């Protein structure tokens, strides 16, 4: 069997070229590939196109890659939780393409499923529809949207095995499974890497066929954006 296990994030991302298109899993800061992002910061590749639902915050997540000017273009559904992002957008240093969240998720899913285009009602009659083919099905108008694929997909899972099978935890799953499927090369970082045969096949979220490189990450910060606490015992 091909060895998918790499030593660490540095080794996993070392052949990502300048101007590559990357997918990065996560919703907000939940389920982001922290180790891979750190490795990209060190490696210095530039001109990257990043497909990710959000763009991190000023001092964490993709926000760090913006600070180092490694990102040329963001493809996201909701951005601007950070000041540096806004500055680069307004100065024209950064290109941004905003996509409805469900369309973004489905375009990535389609990329991983080998479906070049599909029709969705999201965005009909809005500026999202500009230049797109529309078609009527059962009396309702739909927009044609194309698949999204990436040179490298960077995903984060809770547990993984050496065959690349992945299990996510909580709402940290979000965009990670579809991105894992849509990458030409998919790199998975996991909190716990276990030997083959350890994970229950019934529980696998991402089958190992989609994962090319896997490593156990270190020092997960798992930063929380909005720590909201209940005072009441329910």
């Amino acid at each position, binding site marked *: 069997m091909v060895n998918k296990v790499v030593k660490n994030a540095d080794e996993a991302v070392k052949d990502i070229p300048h101007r590559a298109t990357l997918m990065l899993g996560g919703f907000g800061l939940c389920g982001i590939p922290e180790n891979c992002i750190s490795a990209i910061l060190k490696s210095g590749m530039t001109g990257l196109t990043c497909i990710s639902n959000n763009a991190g915050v000023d001092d964490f997540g993709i926000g760090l890659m913006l600070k180092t000017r490694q990102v040329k273009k963001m493809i996201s559904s909701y951005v601007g939780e950070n000041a540096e992002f806004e500055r680069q957008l307004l100065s024209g240093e950064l290109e941004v393409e905003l996509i*409805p969240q469900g*369309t973004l998720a489905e375009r990535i899913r389609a990329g991983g499923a080998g479906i070049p285009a599909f029709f969705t009602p*999201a965005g009909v*009659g809005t500026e999202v529809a500009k230049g797109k083919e529309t078609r009527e099905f059962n009396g309702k108008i739909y927009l044609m949207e194309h698949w999204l694929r990436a040179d490298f997909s960077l995903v984060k899972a809770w547990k993984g095995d050496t065959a690349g099978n992945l299990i996510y935890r909580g*709402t940290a799953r979000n965009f990670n499974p579809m991105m894992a499927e849509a990458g030409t090369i998919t790199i998975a970082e996991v909190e716990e890497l276990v030997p083959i045969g350890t994970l229950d096949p019934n529980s696998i979220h991402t089958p190992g066929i989609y994962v090319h490189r896997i490593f156990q990450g270190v020092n997960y910060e798992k930063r*929380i954006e909005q720590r909201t*606490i209940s005072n009441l015992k329910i």
Partner: protein
Amino acid sequence: MLDKTQIAKRIAREVKDGMYINLGIGIPTLVANYIPKNINVVLQSENGLLGIGPFPLEAEVDADLINAGKQTITMMPGSSLFSSAESFGMIRSGKVDLTILGAMEVSEEGDIANWKVPGKMVKGMGGAMDLVASAKNIIVAMQHCSKEGASKLLTCCTLPITGLRCVKRIVSDLAVLDIIPGRGFQLLERAPGVTVEQIKNATEGKLFIQGEIPEMVL
């Protein structure tokens, strides 16, 4: 006039037992606090959860459990977790019974604008366009007028559109109104102490009034 909490309380009365509901950020999130104990609903979070529970106690905080507003949450018994693609699949296919969201403008045809103000920093539409394009039943929580007194219930939206002909009902600080295609805003209830005349003056779009308009019960 209703404050934000009272708008949330009034919307909570629209919630029926057994519904699957998606709550937007802001006033809609508050609705969860006022759903009567004898009514059981399942709250959907578009980042991949059915069964949002209350905010966690300090000791329960889990970075892997957040809602669409990126707040830490808990899960109710019987919850399920899934990907963002699955989440929007259930939204798109009309499985979610009720969507409650905020709006900057609504037109008399039911068009909604709530994602972008030209000249201001554009943050993105998030899941709003997907939700409004597919939801079976959309209730909007909004202020009837801007701070300057300009109506937000219009003939046509002036801000960039989020979705066309999708809003069914509005609960504003002044009134409860339904959108009747071809007829405009149908006034159903007045906020306590608010007159029909005040609502007329605050509504730029076509307002349809039939019979006595009762004061709303909160």
